[in-house]
């Protein structure tokens, strides 16, 4: 459904204190998501995952490679056709607090795009109201109760559900959820993640979850794929459960190691290591592996040569590391250790 091929995006350097050179947000990223599939894009702030999400939704341009929606390169499409293609791909923002107009009630947030949709599909006004109610129940909200509320009267989780309902007004084929739960209370996150998984199943939507929280990605893409991005480059990719239980790239391992261990319920994974703190970017483009400046396993070879994404093991697993090694870094549930 969505395919990116060798996608590249470079931002001209703004004169911040620590980043005066150009920022290479994406370096030849290739990915593919089919309808009904789920993909988790994992990485830290600034790794390019948000840029990738915005490009795929048509909100950002790219300067190299290609983006295909339903096997059609968006570069070949005219304005009208491109708008139509991008309508199939909807973005869910991180911040449900600023994604809704505080002075308009939920009914308006949904009815405006639905009117346009009704015009496009030759449906009447009665449909608009009915559809708004339908969408609210679909995202797990009580339509009667929610429709005339204002955003400030809803919890973070409820607000994010409204944002999802609004994205569904245009009948998309894919949802790009950019840190869609990171600003919501932990207690309410699971509800929103379950909702995304349900929508994927029931509406056959492709879901791309962009996040730094691997556990969150697992609840949406447990039977899908994860792609780990570091400095605009995919460093590891494969089936979700494999990446979590047997990561081979040290960066993936660092990300998974950094997840807090629920002491009392869990014990540390046997190979867990506390990653190196972030290193200040010197503004120089490293010749070797981009992660070698922070990697505890890196040697001279890693610093002098750049590893390409290549196959690992059997199946569709990919990784870019000169010294790949499976490590079990994820915490183990206490009851599981007792059984073993």
């Amino acid at each position, binding site marked *: 459904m969505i395919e990116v091929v060798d996608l590249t995006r470079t931002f001209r350097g703004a004169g*911040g*204190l*620590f980043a005066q050179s150009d920022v290479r947000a994406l370096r030849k990223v290739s990915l593919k998501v089919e309808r009904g599939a789920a993909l988790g894009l994992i990485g*830290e*702030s*600034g790794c390019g995952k948000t840029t990738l999400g915005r490009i795929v939704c048509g909100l950002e341009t790219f300067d190299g490679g290609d983006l295909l929606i339903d096997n059609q390169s968006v570069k070949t499409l005219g304005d009208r056709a491109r708008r139509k293609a991008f309508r199939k791909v909807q973005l869910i923002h991180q911040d449900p607090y600023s994604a809704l107009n505080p002075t308009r009630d939920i009914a308006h947030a949904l009815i405006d795009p639905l009117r346009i949709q009704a015009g496009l599909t030759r449906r009447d006004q009665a449909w608009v109201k009915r559809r708004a109610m339908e969408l609210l129940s679909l995202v797990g909200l009580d339509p009667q109760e929610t429709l005339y509320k204002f955003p400030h009267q*809803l*919890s*973070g*989780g*409820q607000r994010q559900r409204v944002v999802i309902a609004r994205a569904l007004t245009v009948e998309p084929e894919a949802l790009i959820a950019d840190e869609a739960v990171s600003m919501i*209370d*932990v*207690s*309410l*996150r*699971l*509800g929103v*993640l*379950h909702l995304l998984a349900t929508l994927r199943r029931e509406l056959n939507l492709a879901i791309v979850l962009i996040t*730094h*929280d*691997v*556990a*969150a990605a*697992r*609840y949406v893409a*447990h039977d899908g794929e994860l792609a780990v991005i570091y400095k605009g480059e995919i460093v590891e990719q494969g089936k979700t459960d494999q990446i*979590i*239980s047997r990561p081979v790239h040290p960066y993936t391992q*660092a*990300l*998974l*190691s*950094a*997840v*807090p*261990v*629920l*002491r*009392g*319920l*869990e014990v540390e994974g046997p190979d867990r290591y*506390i*990653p190196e*703190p*972030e290193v*200040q970017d010197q503004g120089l483009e490293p010749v070797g592996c981009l992660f070698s400046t922070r990697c505890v396993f890196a040697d001279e070879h890693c610093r002098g040569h750049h590893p390409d994404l290549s196959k690992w093991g059997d199946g569709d697993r990919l990784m870019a590391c000169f010294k790949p090694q499976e490590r079990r870094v*994820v*915490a*183990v*549930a*206490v009851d*599981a250790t007792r059984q073993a």
Partner: protein
Amino acid sequence: MKSAPLRRPLSDSEIEVSIRGLSVSYQTSTGLYDAIHDLSLAIHRGSITAIIGESGSGKSTLAMAMLNSVTFPGQIRMGAIDYADVGDITGLSAESLRRFRGEHAAMVFQASQDTLNPLKRVGAQLLDMARSHGHRDRKAILREGSLLAERMSLPASRVMAAYQHELSGGMRQRVSMIFALALKPRVVLLDEPTTALDVLSQSHVLQIVRAIHEERHLTTVLITHDMGVVAELSDRVVVMYAGRIMEDAPSQDLLRAPRHPYAKALIRAIPRLTGPLDRAQALPGAPLELRQIPVVGCVFRDRCTLRQSICDEVTPVLREVVPGHRTACHLEVES
């Protein structure tokens, strides 16, 4: 590593902060509502105490009250907050209170970028703060700031000369910790210190918090909604809901054997990296708004799966079930 959980009653000399019968209320157009209701809590010297709860549980209000910084339309309606060697801060004069904040107890705010002046360099702001607390020795305070910066793996000279927009989220969070620690307070309150950070920066900030806590013999209070942060950092955890304490226990005990249905539900709702997917269950419903909080009965009953008629009629009392472990649930006491 972690100190052993405290299982005996605290003697007065071990208590750094004692909150007694605290009620904080907000005046609204429809009446006066308690965001904190009759809350009592003794905080052990040298401990890291986590206060966990959802949005609207009153945890941030509690943190503000602990510095007597609740602003209109909120007010401390009842109760006392005693700090060791200071006394009840609800009775302090404005000038003593100003000195108390920063020199005795300091807070690191959630949106730390909003607490830094965008028009001033970090070093200049640090000097401003020191001057307002009567420090004349500019060199000493800058030295202390640089020392703290290095302690937090920040390039000291560059950070002191930087404007806040030139720093990343993780760096700003650490800079606001420098501000909180520069005047050498005994008590540090951290309000959601890692919420805006990604997982690697979070792990780094938590490491730093623990190290500095130990080096400086601090008493640390951590406000959070994330049980992972609690597990990683705190010795003890206080679970709040609708302005009341639902459960209070050593952190590992709470994670292993929570007693209150709310604490159980909070732990069950954590997305996990391993184990069966259906082990994690979303917490149903939404947190109560201030004006929805019932006056009589258990405040959690609307979201509780074990609700019985007694929960509607009688307000449960927070009581000790095993030494060092308090909970406020009728059904727990009966079982």
